[in-house]
């Protein structure tokens, strides 16, 4: 396995995990889990905007990461 391939797998996995965390975090923020909205000083009216940004960021990261992991 080439070095580039190894780096691709590690970076792809890391990127996908970051994407998954961002998506999960969006839902935790939406449901105000552990008073996250207060802890991060997010006004309730802006929660949906934050959620949208995090989900888009998360999904794009997951797809991009999967490209690297599944590279043949």
């Amino acid at each position, binding site marked *: 396995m080439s070095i580039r391939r190894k780096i691709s797998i590690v970076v792809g996995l890391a*990127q996908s995990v*970051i994407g998954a965390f961002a998506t999960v975090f969006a839902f935790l923020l*939406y449901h105000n889990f552990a008073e996250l909205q207060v802890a991060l*000083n997010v006004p309730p009216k802006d929660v949906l905007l934050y959620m949208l940004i995090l989900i888009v960021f998360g999904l*794009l*990261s997951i797809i*991009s990461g999967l490209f690297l992991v599944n590279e043949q």
Partner: protein
Amino acid sequence: MKRELGLLHATMLGIGGAISAGVFVMLGYAVTLAGTTVVIALVLCGVINLFTMCSYAELGAALPKAGGEYTFSKVAYGGFVSFFTGWFEWLSNMFFAALSAVGFAYMIPYIIPVSMPLAAVAIVAIAVIAIFSAINIRGVKEAGTAEAIMIIVLLIILIAYILGGASNPKIEAFQLYAPEGILGVVKATAYIFTVYLGAEAVAVAQAEIKNPSKTIPRAILLSAAVLIVLYVLIAYVTLRVAPLERLSGESAPIIFAAEQALGKLGTVLLVIGGTIAALSSLNTSIMAQSRVAYALSRDGYFPKALLRIHPKFSTPHVAVVVGAIFTAVLAATGVVNFVGYATDFGFIIGFALVNLSLMKLRREKPLLDRPFKVPFYPFTPIAGIVTSVFLLIFIDVGVLSLGMVLCVLAVLAYYIRMVGYLRFRVAFGGISLGLGGFTAILAYLIASGFMPFNGVSPITITAIVLILLFASVIQIIAGLLNVTAKSRT
């Protein structure tokens, strides 16, 4: 897929696809807009729906393949237009299924005295999605029979309410009253049209309908007619047994009116009715989304795995399971509350495209065998297009924005299919570089205090900055690796 659905099954699919829990809650605000003339609004909605249902009937009988609107627009236009139609049909049905599953979960406390925290709502929603997906995999006849039983019970409950309400001695005289005049009626028409959406599920399952040239048009038109009569009678009785001003403020006005007309029994009956309505629309939506996914896969837009037919039950089981997973995620995470309203947008876009497809096929394929023809052509499909545009004008701005986002995603998904693996990967590399840059700037703005986090401890801010920097580095490296990818092998 086997042709196993008769006229009764197909008609019940149409009625079940349209009657959802929304019917039980939407009348209140519609009454606020239109007063007692909400009855006229419901008739107008029914007529608007009928314009397009005629087009569905003609195309369904002429092209009885799986996929409904998607198949019609594929034959008429092909390319992006057909993908666009199928994409919205698939998404709308998944959103509708998720909304129905969550609606069902929220109705449980009305039947059994239990509290329903968010986690319990999610578990119940996933459970019903799993149960109805299993029924849909087991066979289209089983799913159709389950639908027919649920809708017959629901119709009995609604007819009992109508008869019980009409024979109530305390019934009040009915007078047409429109607090906002004609504009109020128009607004109420646009608002309450949602209750008719979903009846086109007959067309989606048309590959499994027996004797399609006769059964499809009959089932579509019969279900559209039954819906008009049913909704108008429900609204008429509700307006006569409950004071207008009380209906406006009620979250479930029909259940409130049932209590006025039939006492506690009325409440119980209508709550059960609402529950059945939610389940039947869930069942229909699961069937519809899987058939559209199957058709999109058949034409190469979705992965070929979705094309697999179960060897024993002859159903597209992979398409059912994949759609069920998406639906369960939408329902369980609460994201359906955010995107569910886009359902209307998707269905209305589908209406316009079906009418356009009908007109194009009439012009370009005059010899196509049409067992049923739309009456008063071309006025009926033109009326269907005009009224669809009218409904889009009155749709909520938030829904319209979300619909636009879904349009952009449709373009993206289509070009993923069309431009090929390598180009798409390079494009995603560019996106990753952009995300990396964006995250780095965000980290800098937070660290330098340009983006204040009032009341947040310095340790938390430092942790956020470090996480963002790490994400930024990963995104940039990933972007470079994807951009410099040479080939697939």
